[in-house]
């Protein structure tokens, strides 16, 4: 009675991943390969910043004011100890960028994770339960969407600064940033997950689970959640770029990371003030790294969206 008799051992998860359509697509796409190599390099640089850096820019004892505003090493007047030059506080720009990249990525990842967890939970709940719960969640989402994200982030930031004592501002900055960016970005996850949940909820495998007495929570978490995560992955990737940019914008505006713990955005802000005095390197190098990071992440996100959408292939 069998349709085919295949005696095949089940491939491991890794083999299945390697054989999957997405992996196959990845191996054929130059965009995906180049951008992921770039991302890996930048991630590694951020992760191993303390090992790769020539000095700790947070440690004032390592700074020598005599060395301030040195140009990059290959330009006349440059110092081989400071490959990319120094800023007005004599911080080595190369080391500052590594540490700044690290902060930018921490804020980016943490805020994306926060937005995803909040958005997925609310979207799943609204899409599955429907009715008043759904209405309430979606109205909040609508209201949030009608503010520019940066405005909401500024608002959260402002409240945090008002509530916290001034001496805690520097320490709390990173948490405030994560909260501000995370809370402005969950709407997109919630809407996507809600839409897919409403589609999945109607499918017969969900009806089968209901017939078999599986609880609403069990259906949501075990049946529907795994089936709505595909698009979330794409949003999360693209949002990482957005989050890094938002962080940079906030820091550039002076409401993000303080000058004592510079992120890429803070470095650009500091550099911007010296641009007209001919000290171009302080603004250019962090900007290049920021652009490269965001571009690579967005390219990878775009590729992932296409690769996961069979209709575009």
């Amino acid at each position, binding site marked *: *009675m*069998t*349709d*085919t008799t295949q005696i095949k051992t089940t491939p491991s998860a890794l083999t299945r991943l390697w054989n999957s*359509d997405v992996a*196959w697509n990845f191996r054929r796409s130059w965009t995906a390969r180049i951008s992921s190599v770039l991302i890996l390099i930048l991630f590694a640089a951020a992760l191993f910043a303390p090992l790769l850096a020539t000095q700790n820019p947070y440690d004032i004892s390592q700074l020598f004011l005599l060395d301030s505003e040195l140009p990059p090493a290959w330009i006349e007047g440059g110092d081989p100890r400071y490959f990319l030059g120094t800023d007005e506080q004599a911080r080595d720009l190369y080391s500052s960028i590594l540490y700044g990249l690290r902060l930018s990525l921490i804020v980016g990842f943490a805020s994306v994770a926060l937005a995803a967890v909040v958005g997925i939970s609310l979207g799943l709940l609204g899409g599955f339960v429907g009715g008043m719960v759904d209405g309430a969640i979606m109205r909040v989402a609508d209201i949030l969407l009608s503010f520019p994200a940066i405005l909401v982030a500024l608002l959260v930031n402002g409240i945090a600064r008002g509530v916290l004592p001034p001496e805690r501002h520097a320490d709390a900055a990173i948490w405030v940033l994560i909260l501000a960016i995370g809370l402005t970005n969950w709407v997109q996850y919630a809407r996507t997950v809600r839409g897919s949940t409403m589609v999945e909820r109607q499918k017969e495998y969900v009806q089968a689970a209901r017939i078999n007495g599986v609880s609403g929570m069990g259906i949501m978490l075990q049946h529907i959640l795994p089936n709505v995560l595909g698009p979330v992955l794409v949003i999360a990737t693209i949002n990482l770029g957005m989050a890094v940019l938002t962080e940079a914008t906030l820091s550039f505006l002076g409401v993000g990371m303080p000058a004592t713990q510079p992120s890429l955005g803070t470095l650009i802000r500091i550099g911007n003030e010296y641009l007209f005095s001919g000290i171009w390197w302080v603004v250019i190098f962090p900007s290049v790294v920021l652009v490269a990071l965001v571009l690579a992440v967005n390219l990878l996100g775009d590729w992932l969206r296409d690769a996961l959408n069979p209709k575009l292939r």
Partner: protein
Amino acid sequence: MTLLTVENLTVAFPGRSGTVNAIEDVSLSVSPGEILGMVGESGAGKSMTGAAIIGLIEPPGRIAAGEIRLEGQRIDTLRPDEMRRIRGRRIGAIFQDPLTSLNPVLTVGEQLIETIQTHLKLSKDEARARAIDWLRRVGIPAPEARIDTYPHQYSGGMRQRVVIALALCAEPRLVIADEPTTALDVSVQAQIIALLRKLARETGVAVILVTHDMGVIAETADRVAVMYAGRIVEVGPVAEVLTAPRHPYTRGLMASIPRIGARPDVLPQIEGAMPRPHARPAGCAFAPRCPVRIEICGQTRPDLTGHATRSVACHLSEEVPA
């Protein structure tokens, strides 16, 4: 004189695990006024054959071999813009879902008149009169009033009638009808089948009717081509193929259809399932499921051979009693 000839047509899709042939070595011909049924399971290649004839194979699929001639002219090598002129004017199309074949923001009349004027040299008023006439012919009541209404104001069956009018209004020589009744209720399905037959007889248009439903073929077609795993396995006049099938697949298929009036204890069934395109066996693709296979079936692919009107692709076609 034949209207359409397809010779040794192969449609290939490059994919991950090499190139896969959706259809292989398909040859057929259609005469004016004839209804040729193409029947087969999903994935057998019947829709792909229709799409190839009408020049609508989705890239990266392409015609890898063979040729298609309409009234003697090769049409498989035409440029897309030349093919677009042939579609509608000389080859019409009817698809499964009437909703997606009609433009929801244009009235039925606007769509008909536009199609008529694109392909025939007629004034607006003449085209409108022609459109009303077509609506009447496909059985739309009060066509003068309904011509100015939108597709969503029609019921499913009426919509499919409009699609038929749209396919026929430019007076094509050939119509490809891909599962035209599948989305409809049974009582409406019967009406659409009868309408197709009537119009083919009246206008002399040839129809290639693609369907998975033997009943629809039996009620509509003059000849039938049975497809299996990308190839035609049997062709012949409908009455002969249905009552005396010669390919083991056709015989198994006919036997497995439940019938009104007969209540056997066990339905005859074909074991197994049709192989997917990338997993077709060497030799005859039906051999693994075939109850009468012999050694050669696993090694050599049988050609479609026969005489005059009946052809069968089976090594045993001579021995098998008709």
